[in-house]
């Protein structure tokens, strides 16, 4: 504004004079001067309107003004147009230049028998996937393209990872094109196989090229092999894996030329291992040939080869697939090989007989580390949202994914003597089920993963991920196998904390200590509980109290002594407000447990065949077996290698509200310290949270980008009387408001109702029924509202007057209301009114 003004001011005199001139002309005979003057004066006054100019300034000035503006506009337009066009041209040039580059390099990298067709093919593919190229330059694409006519086994190139920087992946991909006879272009079809990467189809075609990537250095035997390749069919398809690393492969004379392999370090080793690749149908011949070839060729491990050979056969009957297959088949082999030059086989199969060949896929589009509840929920979510998704779960446990809560609850109340084998329990609704989420037939085997037409969930048991390379998008297992991924979920959960005093106490004590978490621990404790005379549980939280109740119930039939010691004043002291915690402790005692609150363990020793626990206050507890339930240590071993942040306050990997730690890495379950939009940053160690967060992570891995919003809940049962569900932040250090149903004459103290041990969750019905008839067992049912009859009610946990946590005490089926209240996050003046929403007097 001001600027305009000043400019205008400067120009005004000029304008005035010209205008005046203009004015004078027409207004010769009139008092035009006046007007002119007035008009001239106008511009100055009308300055605020800026370009009003000409308002009376005379038509001439207007004209000029318009002319100037017009000229400027046109000039600007022309300039812009020129610039944009020039830029576009430059851009196009650049692109063409880039695309032509790979072909150039490819040709050079082609070590041997550069199949002309393949090369030709390559370029096309190249063009298709310039991007992939860069990524996998390292990995040898080689991909099988060469179909050599010779039976020589084609090395399969485990396409796997394609996209992720493969380099490492020992996986060898290749498509065995062998077919001695005419180029079995069929092989090429593998492309279908390649899916795995899910990378752009373009990649598949890339397979052909393999060239570029080759480690070139690897060349190694490849050269030898190449000659055979020659044939190569155009299969470009075969290549598909292209991205894949094509590692090792070499040995086979045949090898699909492309092979070269290896990318990374292990490469050298692999050589032998890899090939086996798919061999594909022609395979009949091949396999034998392959093996043979492999054997000799492989400098490294002949063994691997054999194995590989087997695989190929197994792999794919499908005609072409090979490529695809290879990924699956190969990988396993390749992988192994990579790891240890020495015996490829061992790693691969994890020492399995050739027959079974547990192959480890070299690439998994969705890799889930950890095989617990969160991981399974994520697998399910991914499969539901991404049709045909290939999910690989890697777990260090020997079991398939199972649910943990029954291990400390329902399984102990089962009447079935074989429960430790069947692991089946009865649910709250009476139906029986196994703790395993799904029977084994739900899963596919890891070796089939890459070639399964509709994808599936594969579980690799007994392997631990020890190293994570985020830049290369791959992980390394404890047997040195490498698996690359597109999206990864870390759901490693945690390990039970041990107490230093126990660790220092020596081996005898350690042998008699159970850190309870897994199925194995349940079996051991079950056995122990039948043979010893006394068990002591250290810890007064959820797990400790539940186990105490379970064992206490068992002690009713045997002369087992169950002792529970913890530093708090009462059971669940960190969760329930004091009055409720005391009440709960009484209940636990009624289950037959000797509860010793406010007990701090000073030292533990082994004497006279028994464990002596010395408490700080001087008491000594003598027992036969110890169970430590003192918390969970989240497993964050991968943080260092992966460069992930670990939270100092809560432990666990730090992730955002969408559970994402880094670009392609999510964390869910016990190990995730996430940002809860409503309640702030937290880490939750409950079953339902694992399900909710696992499911959310799965959704986000398939592109949903939803934050943690659906609040998870948890529950606990401590005997037939005490059962509650809770949601949100339930910390006893927060101020609470509890609203309980006042006992009337009708519902006599529940304490009176010693039910027929129907077990946990006996259902509201049983509770009701039990009330009237069983009242007689109670000594004297108090008639007036007993202060400490907390039969049923609702407890609100407040933080700055907002409800952040709710416990539903013996009232069921009202969780949605509780969830809503927490979601709203409102300040309620009268919580009694809020409590009315729950209808606690009804069942």
């Amino acid at each position, binding site marked *: 504004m001001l600027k305009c003004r000043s400019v205008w001011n400067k120009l005004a005199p000029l304008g005035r004079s010209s205008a005046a001139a203009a004015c004078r002309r027409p207004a010769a005979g009139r008092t035009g001067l006046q007007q002119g003057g007035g008009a001239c004066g106008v511009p100055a006054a009308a300055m605020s309107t800026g370009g009003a100019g000409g308002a009376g300034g005379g038509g001439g000035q207007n004209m000029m003004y318009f002319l100037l503006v017009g000229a400027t506009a046109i000039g600007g337009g022309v300039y812009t147009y020129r610039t944009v066009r020039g830029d576009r041209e430059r851009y196009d040039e650049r692109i063409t230049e880039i695309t032509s580059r790979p072909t150039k390099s490819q040709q050079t990298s082609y070590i041997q028998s550069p199949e002309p067709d393949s090369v030709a093919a390559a370029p096309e593919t190249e063009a298709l996937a310039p991007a992939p190229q860069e990524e996998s330059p390292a990995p040898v694409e080689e991909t099988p393209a060469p179909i050599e006519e010779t039976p020589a086994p084609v090395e399969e190139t485990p396409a796997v990872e394609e996209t992720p920087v493969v380099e490492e992946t020992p996986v060898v991909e290749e498509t065995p094109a062998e077919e001695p006879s005419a180029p079995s272009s069929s092989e090429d079809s593998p492309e279908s196989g390649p899916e795995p990467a899910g990378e752009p189809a373009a990649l598949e075609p890339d397979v052909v090229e393999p060239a570029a990537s080759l480690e070139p250095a690897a060349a190694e035997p490849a050269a030898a092999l190449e000659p055979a390749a020659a044939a190569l069919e155009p299969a470009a398809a075969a290549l598909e894996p292209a991205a894949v690393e094509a590692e090792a492969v070499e040995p086979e004379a045949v090898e699909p030329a492309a092979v070269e392999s290896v990318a990374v370090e292990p490469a050298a080793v692999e050589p032998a291992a890899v090939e086996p690749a798919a061999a594909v149908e022609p395979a009949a011949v091949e396999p034998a040939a392959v093996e043979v070839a492999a054997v000799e060729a492989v400098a490294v491990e002949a063994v691997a080869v054999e194995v590989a050979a087997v695989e190929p056969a197994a792999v794919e009957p499908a005609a072409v697939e090979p490529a695809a297959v290879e990924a699956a088949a190969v990988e396993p082999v390749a992988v192994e090989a990579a790891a240890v030059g020495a015996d490829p086989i061992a790693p691969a199969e994890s020492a399995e007989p050739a027959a079974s060949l547990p192959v480890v896929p070299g690439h998994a589009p969705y890799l889930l580390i950890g095989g617990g509840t969160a991981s399974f929920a994520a*697998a*399910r979510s991914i*499969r*539901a*949202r991404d*049709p045909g998704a290939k999910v690989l779960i890697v777990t260090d446990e020997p079991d398939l994914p199972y649910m943990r*809560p029954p291990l400390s*609850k*329902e399984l102990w109340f089962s009447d079935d003597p074989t429960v430790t084998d069947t692991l089946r329990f009865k*649910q*709250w609704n009476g*139906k029986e*089920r196994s703790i395993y989420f*799904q*029977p084994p*037939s*739900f899963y*596919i085997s890891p070796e089939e993963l890459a070639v399964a037409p*509709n994808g*599936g969930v594969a579980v690799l048991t007994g392997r631990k991920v020890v190293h994570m390379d985020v830049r290369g998008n791959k992980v390394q297992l404890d047997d040195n196998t490498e698996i690359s991924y597109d999206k990864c979920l870390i759901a490693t959960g945690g390990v039970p904390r041990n107490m230093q005093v126990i660790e220092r106490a020596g081996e005898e004590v350690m042998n008699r200590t159970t850190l309870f978490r897994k199925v194995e621990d349940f079996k051991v404790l079950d056995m122990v509980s039948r043979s010893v005379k006394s068990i002591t549980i250290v810890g007064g939280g959820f797990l400790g109290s539940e186990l105490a109740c379970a064992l206490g119930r068992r002690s009713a039939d045997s002369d087992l002594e169950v002792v529970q010691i913890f530093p708090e004043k009462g059971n669940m002291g960190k969760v329930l*407000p004091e*009055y409720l915690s005391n009440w709960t402790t009484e209940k636990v005692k009624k289950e037959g447990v000797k509860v010793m609150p406010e007990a701090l363990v000073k030292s533990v020793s082994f004497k006279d065949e028994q464990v002596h626990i010395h408490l700080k206050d001087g008491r000594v507890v003598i027992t036969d077996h110890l169970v430590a339930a003192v918390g969970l240590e989240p497993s964050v071993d991968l943080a260092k290698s992966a460069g992930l942040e670990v939270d100092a306050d809560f432990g666990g990997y730090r992730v955002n509200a969408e559970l994402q730690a880094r670009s392609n890495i999510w964390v869910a379950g016990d190990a995730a310290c996430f940002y809860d939009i409503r309640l702030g940053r937290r880490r939750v160690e409950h*079953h*339902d949270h694992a*399900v*909710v967060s696992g499911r959310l992570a*799965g959704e986000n891995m398939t592109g949903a980008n*939803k934050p943690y*919003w*659906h609040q998870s*809940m*948890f*529950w606990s*049962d401590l005997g037939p009387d005490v*059962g509650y569900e809770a949601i949100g932040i339930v910390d006893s250090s*927060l101020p*609470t*408001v*509890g*609203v*309980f*149903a*006042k006992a009337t004459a009708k519902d006599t103290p529940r304490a009176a109702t010693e039910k027929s041990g129907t077990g*946990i*969750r006996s259902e509201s019905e049983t509770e009701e029924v039990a009330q009237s008839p069983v009242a007689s067992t109670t000594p004297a049912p108090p008639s007036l*509202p007993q202060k400490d009859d907390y039969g049923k009610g609702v407890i609100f946990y407040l933080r700055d007057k907002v409800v952040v946590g709710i416990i539903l005490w013996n009232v*069921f*089926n009202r*969780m949605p209301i509780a969830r*809503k*209240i927490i979601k*709203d996050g*409102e300040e*309620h003046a*009268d919580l*009694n*009114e809020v*409590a009315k929403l729950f209808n*606690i*007097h009804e069942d």
Partner: protein
Amino acid sequence: MSYCREEGKDRIIFVTKEDHEAPSNAELIADDPNDPYEEQGLILPNGEVNWNCPCLGGMASGPCGSQFKEAFSCFHYSKEEVKGSECIDNFRAMQECMQRYPELYPQDEDSESSPPQGQSGSAPPTDSDPPASTTQSAPSSDSEAPSEGQNAS
């Protein structure tokens, strides 16, 4: 009448049935049915099927997942008079697939959503009650356990 007591920072209120007879005057914020963050039911706001709904259990994610999705999609979008009458082939394919996994899809169940015996869920929390109310929900529980599977909500 109700009676109240304080124990330190904790307040305890005992109420009789009569006390709670009057309707609550606590205000709850109205829910937005199209909230993208909220868990969706079986049918998404845009009309599509939510394959990740806990109510479906593992039907859409298991080995027969693709057949199930095809059959159910066909049924869902069917505009025939007898809904789904043109989808008979899809359902047959689905059934054939399911017969190959008797463990996962017990043959004595007719409802599509009660695939594996294992599906049911777990969890004691009666919370699952609403979900359990329909056979559909049975599967949901499985991993959903207490999160009351949205059940077909």
